[in-house]
């Protein structure tokens, strides 16, 4: 699939940062407002998919390979399971929320009182970020690979 017209490309260029910022906001405030890693990740991934549609899969595949994306996705997954393992090390149980209700590490350690205090909820924001990274890359790579493989005379990826 080759790219679309200049108007579409320009508009996508303008909108893309806004979509990304909104998605990142949803990820970062996952423990306070409706949303979270999955929802925000899906928003950012849809922005990336818009760029893919506007510029075409060949151009996108030229800029970023699915192998690099795959590694990024692994990083997100390792981050998520890594936080769970940290719970095993610091909190003595797998998936323990070890950051909340303590004073030694001053990150996300407060207790929520409503009215959007972002420094709350322990490991939840960390997990949101890990999952967010995973979902952005995961959904984008699925769309990218399928678009690249279905182009008129294509078939395989490397």
């Amino acid at each position: 699939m080759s790219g679309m017209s200049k108007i579409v490309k320009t508009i996508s260029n303008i909108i893309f940062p806004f979509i990304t910022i909104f998605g990142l906001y949803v990820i970062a405030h996952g423990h306070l407002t409706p949303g979270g890693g999955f929802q925000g990740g899906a928003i950012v991934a849809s922005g990336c998919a818009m760029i893919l549609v506007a510029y075409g899969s060949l151009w996108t595949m030229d800029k970023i390979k699915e192998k690099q994306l795959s590694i990024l996705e692994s990083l997100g997954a390792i981050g998520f399971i890594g936080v769970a393992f940290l719970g095993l090390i610091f909190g003595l149980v797998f998936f323990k929320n070890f950051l909340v209700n303590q004073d030694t590490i001053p990150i996300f350690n407060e207790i929520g009182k409503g009215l959007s205090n972002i420094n709350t909820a322990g490991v939840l924001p960390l997990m949101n970020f890990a999952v967010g990274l995973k979902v952005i890359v995961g959904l984008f790579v699925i769309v990218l690979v399928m678009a690249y493989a279905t182009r008129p005379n294509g078939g395989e990826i490397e």
Partner: protein
Amino acid sequence: MSARNVVAIIFFVIVAMFLVFIALMTHPFGDPGSAEMDQYIIDNTQRETGADNGVTSVVFDYRGFDTLGEATILFTAVAGVILVFRRLQK
């Protein structure tokens, strides 16, 4: 009409009947009978997990292992899609 179709129609009708029974017999909409577990989560999400958002506290804390599985499913699907479209010759 082939024998396969007859069996399929019978199966379809039976499933439809049971689904209608389910729809009639589930508790009325907006009135869950027992909700102790969920009420406990609502009451304690701020104190135990520190999160204002009850759903996030369930997704990442109380049922965090499910979310690990869910993230794994997405990872699996990505690996599967890349595997299916790989180049076959070296």
